[in-house]
C-alpha cells in the first residue's frame, strides 16, 4: 500500500539486473500501487533492455487497527491465496517492507522451505517511519526472516538481531 510501495521502489532503485524477474505482490484493495510500479518499471526498462516483472494481487490480510482475533482469520484467508502463488513463483528472494500483505507470503515461503520444495531468502526492511518500535509485521517477521533491516540506530539497539545500514530509502 501507498507509502510501503514508494519505499520498496526506492529500495529497488539501485539493484542490478541480477534481481530479475521481479514479481510484485500487493493487496487487492490497493488502487495506487500498480501505477507506481508500472511507472518505475517503465523507467527501468529504459536502462535495462531485458527487464521483466509481473503483478499479483492477494486479499488484504488486515485493515488498519483491525482486531487481533479477526486479523488471524483474514491472514489465514490471504494464506490460501499466497500458498499457490508462492508455489508457482518459487522466488529465490522475498523482499518485503511491512504491509500486512507480506506476512502470508512469507509464511507460505517458509512452508515451502520446510517441505523442501523451495527455499527463499527472506529480507525484511522495516519502514523509515519506525524509529522506536517495530510494526506488527516487523514483530512477526523479526525471527522468521533471514535478514531484518532497520533504518534507525534506536531500533538496532532494541533488536540486536537486526541489520543497520543507515537510512536506505
Amino acid at each position, binding site marked *: 500500500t*501507498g*507509502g510501503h510501495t*514508494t519505499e520498496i521502489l*526506492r*529500495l*529497488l*532503485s*539501485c*539493484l*542490478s539486473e*541480477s*534481481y530479475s524477474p521481479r514479481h510484485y505482490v500487493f493487496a487487492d484493495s490497493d488502487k495506487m500501487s500498480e501505477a507506481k510500479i508500472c511507472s518505475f518499471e517503465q523507467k527501468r526498462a529504459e536502462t535495462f533492455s531485458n527487464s521483466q516483472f509481473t503483478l499479483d494481487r492477494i486479499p488484504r490480510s488486515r485493515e488498519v487497527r483491525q482486531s487481533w482475533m479477526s486479523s488471524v482469520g483474514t491472514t489465514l484467508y490471504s494464506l490460501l491465496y499466497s500458498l499457490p502463488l508462492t508455489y508457482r513463483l518459487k522466488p529465490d*528472494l522475498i523482499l518485503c517492507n511491512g504491509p500486512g500483505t507480506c506476512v502470508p507470503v512469507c509464511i507460505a515461503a517458509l512452508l515451502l522451505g520446510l517441505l523442501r520444495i523451495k527455499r527463499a*531468502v527472506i*529480507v525484511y*526492511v522495516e*519502514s*523509515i*517511519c*519506525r*524509529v*522506536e*518500535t517495530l*510494526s506488527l509485521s516487523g514483530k512477526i517477521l523479526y525471527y522468521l526472516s533471514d*535478514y531484518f*533491516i532497520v*533504518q*534507525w540506530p534506536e531500533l538496532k539497539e532494541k533488536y540486536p538481531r537486526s*541489520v543497520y*545500514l*543507515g*537510512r*536506505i*530509502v
Partner: protein
Amino acid sequence: FRFKDSLAEDVRRADLVISHAGAGSCLETLEEGKPLVVVINEKLMDNHQLELAKRLHKGGHVFCCNCSTLVETLQSMDLSTLKPFSPGQPEKFALFLDNVFGFQ
C-alpha cells in the same frame, strides 16, 4: 484545492511547508530542501506516526507544534537553525544484497 495526485510541484515552489506528520509529506519536503513545520494532532494520530516526526524534530530538521501553538511557532521560529536532511542511500542496500548473494 482538496486533493491532488502529487504535491511535488507545489513543494518545489514553496518557501515554507506546513504539514501534518505523515511520513510521505515530511520526507518529500525535506528532500526538496524546504523548511518544514510539522503540526501534530495527538488525538487523531497513531502513536507510531509520531515517531518519525519526533525523531526529525530531535535531529533539528523540522519545527514541531500543535494546532494551538502554530501561530506562535511561525512567529518565533528561526529557519536558519534547521539542519539539512541528507537523502537515504539505497545503494547501501544494493551492496548489502549483492554480498548476501555473492554478486560482484
